[in-house]
């Protein structure tokens, strides 16, 4: 019906850009994962599979598994925190929507480290929360609120919340309200209307947000250090260490490649699951 060629060409600059500045570096990483570490930490141009053999150590498998659990929990909690907020924003008048969006984003313009240290001040044993609870006589000994898996999760959700709120807001904002009204007219309870109309129609946003949060949390390493007291390493910390203390770039590259493949596999499975759910819904 119409000539779509020119529109299709719009992707050319972006593809060219990513080809040079992303694909090329990626190939270099893949190559490096097959090289050797020299005695002084330099990269030696000699082929080896040893880096991948080393990953078979159950130790790294365990850390991968721990990382997955944290990433999944972070994603679920982000949906719980982010969806209602995005829903509320999308219900506001247009101009208020812009203001709320900005209000949600502004805290993230403040440096990440500075914000994390602020959390430490709030949660530490002589911190804001413990001081208030103690002066109210609710507790006598300070609660251990920091340096455990709970505080790591809190830090993760806090850091990644915008990745969830923005995509959900974007898809809620363009939802066709008439379908919701139709559901109400047919006597649906608000909860049923939400479950069967709103949620399916904003699925793209939830899926996009979940992937962004999941993928970002899987490589996270500063939060476990600052909020978790660096006691339990996630895979991001292990990779970081290969560059910043073990000076083993090839092993770090191999770990990164495995991490990337694993994440891509999980995203694929997630897409499949969503599609299967869709088909089921269509059949019902």
């Amino acid at each position, binding site marked *: 019906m119409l000539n779509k060629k020119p529109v299709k060409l719009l992707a050319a600059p972006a593809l060219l850009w990513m080809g040079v500045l992303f694909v090329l570096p990626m190939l270099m990483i893949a190559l490096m994962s097959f090289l050797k*570490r020299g*005695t*002084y*930490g*330099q990269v030696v141009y000699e082929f080896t599979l040893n880096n991948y053999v080393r990953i078979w*150590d159950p*130790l*790294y498998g*365990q*850390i991968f598994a*721990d990382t997955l659990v944290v990433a999944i929990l972070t994603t679920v909690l982000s949906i719980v925190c982010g969806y209602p907020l995005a829903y509320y924003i999308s219900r506001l008048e*247009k*101009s208020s929507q*812009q203001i709320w969006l900005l209000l949600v984003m502004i805290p993230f313009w403040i440096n990440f480290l500075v914000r994390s*240290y602020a959390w*430490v001040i709030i949660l*530490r*044993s*002589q911190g804001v929360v413990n001081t208030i609870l103690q002066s109210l006589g609710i507790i006598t000994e300070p609660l*251990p609120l920091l*340096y455990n898996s709970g505080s790591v999760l809190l830090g993760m959700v806090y850091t990644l919340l915008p990745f969830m709120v923005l995509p959900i807001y974007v898809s809620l904002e363009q939802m066709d309200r008439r379908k919701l009204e139709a559901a109400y007219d047919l006597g649906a309870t608000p909860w049923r209307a939400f479950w069967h109309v709103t949620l399916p129609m904003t699925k793209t946003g939830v899926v996009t947000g979940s992937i962004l949060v999941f993928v970002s949390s899987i490589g996270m390493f500063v939060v476990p*250090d*600052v909020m978790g*007291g*660096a*006691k*339990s*390493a996630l895979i991001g*910390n*292990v990779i970081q*260490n*290969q*560059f*910043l*203390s*073990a*000076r*083993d770039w090839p092993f770090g590259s191999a770990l990164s490649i495995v991490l990337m493949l694993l994440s891509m596999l999980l995203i694929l499975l997630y897409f499949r699951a969503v599609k299967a759910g869709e088909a089921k819904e269509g059949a019902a």
Partner: protein
Amino acid sequence: MKRFKSMMIGALTAVLAVTAVGCSSSSEPEQQVLNIYSWADNFDLDVIKDFEQKYNVKVNYDVYGSNEEMLAKIQAGASGYDLIQPSDYMVATMIQLGLLEELNKENIPNMKNIVSTFKTPPFDKENKYSLVYTWGITGIAYNKKYVKETPTSWNDLWNEAYKGRVIMLNDPREVMGMALIKNGFSNSTTNKDELAKSFADLKKVLPSVMAFDTDNIKQKMIAEEAWIGTVWSGDAAIINGQNPDVEYVIPKEGATIWADTLAIPKGAKHKDLAEKFINYLMEPEVSVKNYESIGYSNPNEQAYPLHSEEYRANKMIFLDKADIARAEWLVDVGDTLQEYDRYWTEMKSGR
């Protein structure tokens, strides 16, 4: 939406305008430029200003957070820096990798001011490539409000009474080195049995550890989150200044000594100027001003009599000769570093 857009465009123009102004004012072709790449707060900014004025040059001072980050930048080349500050073991590595320029000693007559202990450091025995700038020893800092008995040994960190209040540096070499020294081995051993034995010992202290932290260890000691832990002497001095209850001791088994140096990366464009700056820093009067401001130990012997009473009386800055004699430098362990890393990861896998 329109308003939002115009607001964005307004902000954009404002920022671009400011950038344009910023760019044009910073390009003064006549002046020579010295590009320093170092740790943050490692110089008194007034000292840099004085140097700029005295020699009519411009100094750029950029910072890094770890030796390895700096190494990666220098290794890739094209970094454009003239003066760097690698730590002891990193000097040795960089010499091996051919990344450092030899210093022209004729340009640095003031290097004679350095105290003899640091004229022959093991990582660069003849000061061919580097000069010690600041130094310290990793010992035990403790808060005497909670730690009633003065610690004398690394073993005191293992004391059950401090459970959940022990802090350690977040650095595999420092922590493993401590455990090795505690067990009577060298902090840079390449012997696998010694490593395994020390690691088994280290695992026992894990349940007591509140956190591993290098960057914020001072805050945690000052705020009394942590009661006892492994701390650099210079940091201990800063902590003690803020919280006088925190004391510092070097355990009887010995400890790790470290230094940050002044060195010139290979291919530096302004090598002469960098040497001029190094020489300037070693003028006794300049160094007094510099070190009293940054609060770390000064290796400049000629400056000692000029320092204030307060600075000289501080035992965390003017360390005991006997303690220095017992301290050991960290040495690059080559391929064994993989073993250290494997243990470190295992320790942090929480099992």
